[in-house]
């Protein structure tokens, strides 16, 4: 499947009806999701026939993409009932049989002992901008514990050094695959600008 086809396909994925500010709900654009998944699949072969986890899956664009690319099974983990409803609708629309969803709090997932159960973990975690500072690192730490081979994640470029330090502490190898401009259109009433560009790193963490 070509990148354009994948993106086109992901454009059909429904997004949040009423995004919740405190959960930092922004849909991952079909373009960014497509680029991420395409790289994970073509460059690293970490999707097809693999057990994949999507942490903070929201409406499921990454999970849907992984399933379309023939993941053995993709399991989404999401806290919000409403997002899960939209996700469910998407799975039904796409008729993808290789997706499952668990409703839970990723920040408490550590206690569920999912250590190294998944081949690959992919995510676009909350960045920690809404009274939830540090949540991006909690997601990352959990992802790393769950993965056998690799974790793919998006993080603010401004936090790159901090993340590198943590990666060293956790004994994982970190590779910035790409720098993306995450264009967030005004989705909340208080947003004054039409859209804002955030510089984001697409990172691969390989588990030793």
């Amino acid at each position: 499947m070509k990148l354009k086809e994948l993106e086109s396909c992901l454009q059909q994925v429904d997004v949040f009806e009423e995004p919740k500010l405190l959960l930092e709900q922004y849909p991952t654009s079909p373009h960014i999701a497509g680029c991420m998944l395409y790289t994970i699949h073509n460059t690293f072969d970490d999707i097809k026939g693999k057990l994949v986890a999507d942490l903070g899956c929201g409406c499921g664009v990454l999970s849907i993409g992984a399933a379309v690319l023939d993941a053995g099974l993709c399991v989404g983990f999401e806290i919000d009932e409403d997002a899960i409803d939209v996700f469910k609708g998407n799975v039904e629309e796409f008729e993808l049989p290789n997706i499952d969803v668990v409703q839970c709090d990723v920040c408490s997932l550590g206690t569920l002992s999912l250590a190294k159960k998944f081949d690959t973990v992919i995510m676009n975690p909350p960045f920690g901008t809404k009274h939830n500072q540090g949540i991006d690192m909690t997601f990352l730490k959990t992802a790393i514990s769950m993965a056998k081979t690799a974790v793919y994640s998006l993080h603010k470029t401004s936090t790159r050094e901090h993340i590198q330090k943590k990666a060293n502490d956790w004994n994982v190898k970190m590779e910035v695959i790409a720098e993306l401009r995450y264009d967030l259109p005004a989705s909340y009433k208080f947003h004054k600008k039409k859209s804002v560009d955030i510089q984001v790193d697409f990172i691969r963490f390989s588990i030793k």
Partner: protein
Amino acid sequence: MKLLTHNMLTSHVKGVTKGYPLLIKATEVKVNEVDFNPQFISRMIPKIEWSALIQAAEGLGHLQDLPSAVAPDFESNEDFLRKVHRALLEVEVIEGCLQCPESGREFPISRGIPNMLLNEDES
């Protein structure tokens, strides 16, 4: 909820030391067709808790003729792999709940999705 997913879930209610495996109480179960990938199933077999899978499949009335122990030559046994594939990926619990074996706490499953969220006093 597929049985492969169920195989990984535990109860993390405060104070519980062994919240595994979760007992499945199903009121609606479906069997859906999923493409068979023998390599994927082969790789999953060593990762899962086999007895928990058997217990779960049996409880749902979908044990079929899945053996109580893994065949030593499983990688090349297509018949066996197909049976495992069916149990792990095709049987789905749509409605019901998962019960913690230690605390008895029930986690609801609705529309195929288990809700593992705990209340404040449980976590």
